[in-house]
Each structure stands twice: as C-alpha cells, then as structure tokens.
C-alpha cells in the first residue's frame, strides 16, 4: 500500500492514494467473476488483482476478457474498451454488439461492477451521472450497471472539494439507481451497506484514522458491527 506525503488540513493521517483505493477494492473481486470497471479509480483495480485471481472484464462497448492496454500509439480503434482506450488482443476474448452487451448487464449476469460516485446515501442510493448546476450529464452504461449488477462497489475519494461529504443521508443529486450500493471503498474507509436495515457499517479505516475521524467527513450516520480493522 502506498501512502505518501503529510496529512492535509485537519486530517489525522494521510489519505490513501488512488492506487491504494483501487488495490483495496480489487481484493474483494472473486476468482472467475465477470466484472465491469468504471472509469477512474475503478479502472485501476485491474492492476492490483490478488495472485491466482482471474477475472473476465466486460466493457459496455462489446468486449469480454480483455486485460492490459496497448502501448501508446499502438492501439487499434476497432479494439476499444468503454473508456475509449485500446486494450491488447489476448486469447479468450470475445467481441459482440451492444444488444448482447446490455443483455449481459440488464440480465444480471455481471457479478460485480466497481463504479465512481458523486454521492452515496445511507441506504445505498447512488448518484454519479450529473452535477445539477451543470444541467447536462452523461448516463452511459451507469444506470444499467448500477441497477442490475449482482454486486455494486463504489471506489472513490471520501469527500468532494472542500471536504464536502459524498456519503450522505439522502442524495441531493439526481440518482443513478436507488438502493444499489453494497460497499464503498474510499481513501479513508471501507463501508458496507446493509440495505435491509438501512445501516452503513464502517469496517475498515486508513492507517491513523479512527471511527470518529471518518464519521466527521461523512454526513450519513455510520455504525459499528464487528471489529474495525486497518485497510491493508
């Protein structure tokens, strides 16, 4: 795990960097799963798979089983991922059209999706497609993924600019899907959402961060259920 620099502002300790967040999120990905990674921190998860874990990466544009990207300048525009990047051709890949791609998503065949978020509510509502003041946004595959993947993990920075909480009691931004998030991995915490009871359970904290430190940057009420361990 990489932690660098001094803590910012009132932080008790440094926050994790993007790679460390991705690494922690990757740890829960189960061998053999079909996985869709959103852009940003989620896409980095692919770099940190535990030994022995083989995943089938799916991208909305019609590809299953891709791995690393081509070297800069060597990509083939006809071999793209959903982020507009160009993966290498590897054995076992499959190409298909958008109908098939969203059958896989809408039909509930994606085991896990890791997405970014603007806001997540205590009950697992997700908002990640539009900032209200801009007035225009992009949905892409996010609503289909959030509503239909078997498991939805959010990998993001814990707060927005100025330490504005992103983990909130109720989302104020327009939703991507209600009650869909299972787990949040941030640069200071790992939080499980028990959607049945509507509780946010703090499970792990970054080194040097206490429950109270995390709660202070979280609008939603966190609870303890079992031991809180250090993110490793």
């Amino acid at each position, binding site marked *: 795990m990489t932690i660098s620099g001094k803590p910012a502002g009132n932080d008790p300790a440094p926050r994790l960097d993007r790679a460390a967040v991705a690494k922690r999120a990757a740890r829960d990905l189960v061998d053999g799963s079909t996985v869709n990674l959103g852009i940003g921190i989620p896409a980095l998860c692919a770099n940190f798979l535990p030994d022995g874990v083989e995943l089938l990466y799916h991208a909305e544009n019609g590809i299953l089983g891709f791995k690393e990207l081509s070297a800069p300048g060597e990509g083939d*525009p006809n071999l*793209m991922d959903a982020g507009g990047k160009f993966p290498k051709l590897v054995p076992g890949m499959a190409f298909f*059209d958008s*109908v098939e791609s*969203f059958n896989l998503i*809408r039909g509930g065949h994606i085991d896990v999706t890791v997405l970014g978020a603007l806001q997540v509510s205590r009950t697992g509502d997700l908002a990640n497609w539009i900032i209200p003041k801009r007035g225009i946004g992009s949905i*892409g595959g996010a*609503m289909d993924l959030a509503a239909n993947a078997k498991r939805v993990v959010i990998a993001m920075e814990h707060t927005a600019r100025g330490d504005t909480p992103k983990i909130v009691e109720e989302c104020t931004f327009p939703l991507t899907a209600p009650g869909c998030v299972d787990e949040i991995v941030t640069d200071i915490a790992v939080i499980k959402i028990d959607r049945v009871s509507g509780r946010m359970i703090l499970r792990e904290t970054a080194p040097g961060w206490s429950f109270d430190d995390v709660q202070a940057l979280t609008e939603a009420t966190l609870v303890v259920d079992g031991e809180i361990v250090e993110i490793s």
Partner: protein
Amino acid sequence: MPINKISNSFVDAVADIPSGASIMIGGFGGAGGQPTRLMMALRDLGVGDLTIIGNVAGISKTTGYGWPEHLDPIDHGMFFESGQATKITCSFPVPGTTNPLSEIERAWREGRAEVDIVPQGTLIERIRSAGAGVPAFYTPTGVGTPVAEGKEHRDFDGRTYLLETALSADYALIRAQKADTRGNLQYTGTSRAFNPAMATAAKVTIVEVDEIVEVGGIDPERVETLSTYVNRIVQREAGDPLP
C-alpha cells in the same frame, strides 16, 4: 437479377436525406465503427433540422475518446457546430470536463439543441425493439431516477420496471468492415456496438465499408447484419487515412 446495392460515392449515398430527417449514427463513440465518411458527406449536404441518434456522442473532439493519439478526432459534434442538428438522443453527450466546451454542450447552452439522454442499455434495446417489431418493453433500468419521470411503472415478481418504447429513424448511417454486393455485412472487433441494431431500425440503412466483396466473399457464419436490412453500401477509398 443479382441484387447490387453499391453507391458510387458518399455524396450519392446520402443525397436524398431531407431536412427534418432523423438519423441514427452507428458505432459506440470513437473512431472504431463510426461511419465517419458518411457523416462528413451529410454535413457537406447541408440539410438542417436534423435529429441525431447516437450513443457516446460528441466527446471525442475535446477529449480524444476512442481515437488514436496522432489524429484529430471527428465526432457527432460536427452537426451541432454546423447548426444542422437541433436534437440528439444518446447516452453520453458530454465529457467530464467543460474545458474546452464540446459542440453539443455549447449548442445546448445556447438553446440551439435539445439533448435527450437515455441510459445506454435502454437506448440499444429501444433501437433493437424498433427493428424487431416490439413496440414497447419493460426494463428495471432508470427506476427511481429522472429517467423514470412520466413513464409507466409496473411491478413484475415484486420488482418495479419502466415501460420504454421502440425508437426508429428515417436513416441509419452505419459502419462495417466488409460487405458483399448483396448487402451482407461483417464487422471487426468492437466496431459492432450500435451498428447491427441500427441497421434494422431505420427506413433506409446506408453502410460505409472498408471493403466490398462478391457474394460468397463473407463466411456465412460471419454475416452479422443480414442483407435484407441494407439499402446502400459505399466503399472507402483505398488508403483512406481515417480509421
């Protein structure tokens, strides 16, 4: 008579598209699978009041999305820069950044264009439904979001779904790797995306291809769009520098 659907030029292939037409543009977004030469011919035709239907649309020029680094990206924004399009239905019309502003967002801010944002899975299923004779279907996607506003909600087996309707167009401009003269199409890699479904959902389907072969030149296992759906085929010039 042997069926032959070849148009002699991109100009000829789009010449009858009138102002006010609805136009599906294939691909996913990015260079692969995008009918770039047909789009440029439609822009040069100059007709207006167009409704564009795409997917990831108009974000390549400002972000490089899906284009090789050494090329200047070309995207759906051209129809908004030219003032030809007044509406777009798509899933991803703006990039994360507003600096510089994309042509679609600029047109929207200036009140020159309506932007209808549809979840991608709903968009492709609506297009597929139009081609498949299904006027409407239920989907779980969008429930509890702004997308659901004004739509019929209905429960099946304890889960709530939205009613979504078929989406067709006057023309589909699509891109394939190879066509035979009859109009059977073969794609390559991730260039399929929205192309096969759009081919089925428009009154007139016009295809830009890299190569035209004789009947029999496509493996019958690899016909990914049936010739019945295709009206016109145009082959790119050899050595076209655009992807």
